[in-house]
């Protein structure tokens, strides 16, 4: 995936000349830049919204709101304040919270407050989920052989020996690739978290 079609995006918003050129195109609402941005980030945003809202129809509506806002605010995007991933996910988080608040009836009196404030699953809150989806997005930037390996290990729960057996790749190679994939992912997370200073 690292050699995918959108190198300007994958190198990070502040990562180099090509990224600066991309931001320049974005500021002009260049349609090609917006399409590239959509192709890169829409699956993550939509997955986050489906995961957060637990309602595909509502997620589609909010998803449209998010990218309409991206389109409207593109000329004001400041790469010094946040990476594109952080900027877009911050918008998604805000619109998801708006949608969740819209679902909760207003308390009729102060005594209703504590019940309404109760969160049945803190791990499913928009804030908790957004961090996971930032990792999920970076995971999608790994090379396919690396992301496939991490999927087998952390999603399907296979041991490295079981991965070697299933894939036919020597155990030593599996271990080497696992270290490499985790290292690359860690670097990307560190880079994202260093550059990401939410507005």
């Amino acid at each position, binding site marked *: 995936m690292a050699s995918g079609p959108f190198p300007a995006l994958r190198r990070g918003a502040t990562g180099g000349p090509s990224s600066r050129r991309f931001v320049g195109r974005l500021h002009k609402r260049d*349609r*090609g830049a*917006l*399409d590239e941005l*959509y192709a890169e980030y*829409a*699956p*993550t*945003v*939509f*997955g986050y919204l*489906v*995961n957060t809202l637990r309602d*595909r*129809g509502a997620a*589609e*509506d909010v*998803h*449209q*709101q998010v*990218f*309409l806002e991206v*389109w*409207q605010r593109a000329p004001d995007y400041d790469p010094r304040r946040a990476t594109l991933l952080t900027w877009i996910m911050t918008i998604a988080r805000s619109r998801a919270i708006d949608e969740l608040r819209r679902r909760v009836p207003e308390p009729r009196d102060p005594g209703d407050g504590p019940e309404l404030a109760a969160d049945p699953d803190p*791990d499913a809150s928009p804030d908790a*989920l957004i*961090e*996971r*989806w930032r*990792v*999920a997005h970076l*995971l*999608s930037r790994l090379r396919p052989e690396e992301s496939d390996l*991490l*999927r087998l*290990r*952390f*999603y399907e729960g296979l041991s490295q020996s079981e991965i070697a057996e299933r894939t036919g790749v020597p155990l030593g190679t599996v271990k080497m690739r696992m270290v490499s994939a*985790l*290292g690359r*992912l*860690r*670097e990307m*997370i*560190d880079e994202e978290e260093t550059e990401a200073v939410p507005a």
Partner: protein
Amino acid sequence: MSDRPTDDLERRLEALPREAWDRPVPPPAPWPPEQPWRVRAPGFSLRPLTAALAAAALIALGVAGGVLVSGGEDSPDTVASGTTVALAPLGDADPTAAGEATLTEGETGEAVVEVSGLAPSGDSDFYELWLIGEDGELVSLGSFRVPGSGEAKLRVPVPVDPSRFSFVDVSLEPDDGDPGHSSDSVLRGPTT
């Protein structure tokens, strides 16, 4: 490299939701495809008879004068900023279906559309909003789905001068990958 233990990263990966590994396919972008006005569905054209029938339907519904122009001083031949267009049912649409589209111009021109009485979207179809010119020129403004309530409200960018177009149209589109108009319009309203 961070000095955080790899175990922390492994815990974060283990905590990823299922959808993070199998990300759902997002809906189409809310902005129209690049230069969509060059895309025309094969065999589709705005027939004068259709336009006349649409106008007649609007008259019958008492909304022929329903093109509400802000300020009321604009020429009826143009679409002014903030123009509101009443949409009436066409084809197989429920006779009670209705809609309203408000078009604004400028660098951040947009259309705010509210529809009601439409059949809920299925798994293999969606609705699409269009501008139609007198010569059959088509501009897709975006697609949307209608929930069980039959009502939807959307806001989409308008990248063209809406005054060049004669109708606002809502079509029912099969999810077949064809970006052209399906010729199955369910709501339409004249901009003048």
